[in-house]
């Protein structure tokens, strides 16, 4: 296959699968979904391999070149994010069916609709990672937002539906701000292609207003503090496989778009202190998110607040705008994606096995679910940024950048953030390990099937291995570094 065709397939195949999964009888959906996952994931990994071998790939759809036509573009950043999505999707395809079957008999409907909705989400994510056109990215944002809201609503409970409605309203509001910004950019530049726009934009009122609107819109979707308020309820009340998708992948898509827009369009024309503001908000998010996570009594809420904190790290790049920090930020997106997906799936398993997710009632739970709590600990290592995990490598790069630049507040925040993460993860493990466990309970039936326990373990292991293989993503990234950072 022509490598450029891969880009088109990566969006169209999940779209087609979503439609097929909707039409297919409910009994067929799991098998078809798993088969489709295998296909889509192989394509994504193949594309990452191609980019690693031959450098960035572009394709103009319908053979109409920009500015008239729409371009898809796969560089190192896209390749890594596509690969991350594939690596999360594969274990998920094994875990989700088992989870939906076990969760509640009445939710067979949720299990049946999970597949088409997740395929739509996957298509939207791939599109956003590949988008070279601002308006096309808008359609991608809406596709992703609607699918995410519907996935949250699969929870079915009142709390899930309320969180979904709030998420929907804010996501739509964010898209509106983004679209308004795109309208102004079109008025100023007369093109929608990212690269072309970057080459010709000037620092005038319209482009500054557009930057502000687009940034605000995408911050709402990425849930950077102070726009994080919708996230904990939505991520914590969704079914566990959905939480893994939302926290691990969906918030990263709007972040990647923001990253491209800032460093490809706006950075060349100078931003003044705007990047500093985002960096400071990132620090605030690390602190506030961690403090809130420590106060939570339910595991899923703790994990959701931890996402608020960990997303803060991503935004340090806007203040530390150098190559090292860029690599660190992307590496953090990858390792957080894997570790957080693992953690949410493990949290879902705990709820299934124990029937509750109260942290203070976990006494001795680690004895019942050794593999699941091992997964929690392993994912925690990456979230805390301990060696040799991916989280460690990412934070190390950011730390080095901050020290090189002499930005001491950032040095303190990066190190402090790890301590804070330990502050909310250790109590969880302590409760689970504390107390002697009644050995009689280990007899009898297995609490969880291996389909439920191994996928999160695999994800957590990948997050750990990422630190040992950090050179691979780094070499992919060096090809697609934005001009403004070189």
């Amino acid at each position: 296959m022509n490598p450029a065709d891969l880009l088109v397939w990566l969006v169209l195949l999940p779209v087609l699968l979503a439609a097929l999964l909707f039409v297919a009888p409910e009994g067929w959906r799991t098998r078809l979904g798993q088969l489709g996952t295998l296909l889509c994931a192989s394509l994504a990994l193949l594309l990452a391999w191609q980019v690693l071998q031959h450098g960035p790939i572009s394709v103009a759809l319908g053979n109409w070149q920009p500015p008239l036509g729409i371009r898809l573009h796969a560089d190192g950043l896209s390749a890594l994010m596509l690969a991350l999505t594939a690596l999360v999707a594969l274990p998920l395809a094994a875990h989700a069916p088992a989870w939906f079957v076990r969760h509640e008999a009445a939710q067979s409907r949720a299990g049946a609709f999970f597949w088409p909705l997740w395929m739509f989400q996957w298509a939207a994510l791939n599109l956003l990672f590949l988008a070279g056109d601002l308006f096309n990215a808008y359609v991608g944002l809406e596709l992703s937002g609607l699918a995410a809201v519907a996935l949250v609503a699969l929870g079915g409970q009142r709390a899930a539906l309320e969180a979904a409605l709030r998420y929907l309203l804010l996501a739509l509001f964010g898209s509106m701000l983004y679209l308004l910004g795109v309208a102004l950019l079109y008025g100023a530049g007369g093109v929608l292609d990212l690269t072309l726009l970057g080459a010709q934009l000037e620092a005038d009122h319209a482009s500054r207003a557009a930057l502000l609107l687009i940034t605000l819109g995408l911050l709402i979707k990425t849930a950077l503090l102070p726009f994080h308020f919708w996230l904990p309820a939505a991520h914590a009340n969704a079914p566990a496989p959905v939480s893994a998708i939302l926290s691990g992948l969906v918030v990263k898509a709007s972040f990647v778009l923001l990253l491209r827009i800032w460093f490809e369009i706006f950075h060349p024309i100078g931003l003044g202190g705007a990047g500093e503001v985002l960096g400071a908000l990132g620090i605030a998010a690390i602190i506030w998110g961690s403090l809130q996570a420590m106060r939570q009594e339910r595991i899923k809420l703790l994990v959701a607040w931890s996402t608020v904190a960990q997303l803060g790290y991503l935004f340090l790049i806007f203040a530390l705008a150098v190559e090292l920090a860029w690599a660190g930020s992307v590496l953090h997106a990858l390792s957080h994606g894997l570790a957080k997906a693992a953690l949410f799936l493990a949290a879902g398993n705990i709820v299934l096995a124990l029937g509750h997710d109260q942290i203070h009632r976990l006494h001795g739970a680690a004895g019942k679910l050794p593999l699941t709590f091992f997964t929690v600990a392993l994912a925690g290592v990456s979230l805390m940024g301990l060696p040799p995990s991916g989280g460690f490598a990412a934070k190390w790069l950011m730390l080095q950048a901050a020290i090189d630049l002499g930005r001491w507040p950032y040095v303190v925040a990066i190190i402090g953030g790890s301590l804070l993460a330990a502050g909310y993860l250790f109590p969880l493990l302590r409760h689970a390990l504390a107390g002697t466990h009644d050995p009689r309970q280990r007899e009898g039936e297995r609490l969880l099937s291996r389909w439920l326990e191994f996928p999160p373990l695999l994800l957590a292991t990948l997050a750990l291995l990422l630190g040992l293989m950090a050179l691979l993503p780094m070499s992919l990234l060096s090809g697609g570094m934005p001009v403004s950072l070189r």
Partner: protein
Amino acid sequence: MSGVTLALDLLLGLSLVWLAWRTLASPTLFGAIVLFIAFGLLMALVWARLDAPDIALAEAAVGAGLTGVLLLAALADLQQGDNLLPVREPLRGWLLQLILALCALGLFTLLTLALLGLPSPPPSLAGQVLPRLDGAGASHPVTAVLLDFRAWDTLLEIAVLLLAVVAAWSLGSHPHPNPRIVGSEVLQGLVRVLLPFAVLSAGYLVWRGGFAPGGAFQAGTVLAAAGILLLLSGLGRPFNGRHWLWRALLASGLFIFTGVALGTLLLGGGALDYPAGLGYGLILAIELGLTLTIGLTFIALYAGEQDAAEERE
């Protein structure tokens, strides 16, 4: 510019702003919906004024028609029995009010400064589109952009439409908004007369789309309107989502569109690069498929899915 035109422009613009304000400040939800429908009508007139007949058509069908009916249906459902929704009090506290007012004012100032400072003459893609119309599958510029130059956007837009139905059905079946509907002979007579006209108009709009304003979306909305009228008058019945044929029909537009995209890709031309001479035919096929899908989609979003069991009750 003549005085009358100037008066018309001023009146249209000012009444649009006034209407938006009254709509959003309306004390009752019913009033807000009625005003929103009127807002759609005025928007359609403004689109006409701005030489955007395609958008005027879409707005007349959607803003003034479909969205209003969807809102009314939702309101009818919300108002059955006690309320219901976790609605918090309107925002209280003068400080919050002040901050909010400043935000709105700030947005207006920001946009005004940006708009007044735009370059002249404005950069535009018109110079790119018009010379290429001969090679495109449609001679009407907007249709050519939608289904050829930027067909990728339109394909994904159709994905969004199907996603909306999948998402709505994933919430479970919801009954018809007004279960007490009984057949009224006057209404059914009216619908019987109107129906052929609606179908005819839809066909006319698709056919015109190739060379003049119109197209699948507008035509599909007219079809949807006809379908909703059937349901409202009690002549038609909602979908049975359990039957795979309905679901296949709902997805057919997306199947056709992705089929064309993947077909052109596999033939070696590149996705959505229509082979020479086939452009017009392929675009017409896509448009016809889309019209049917869009019509069914909006009916499905209005009526919801009905379980076979529920239907029997």
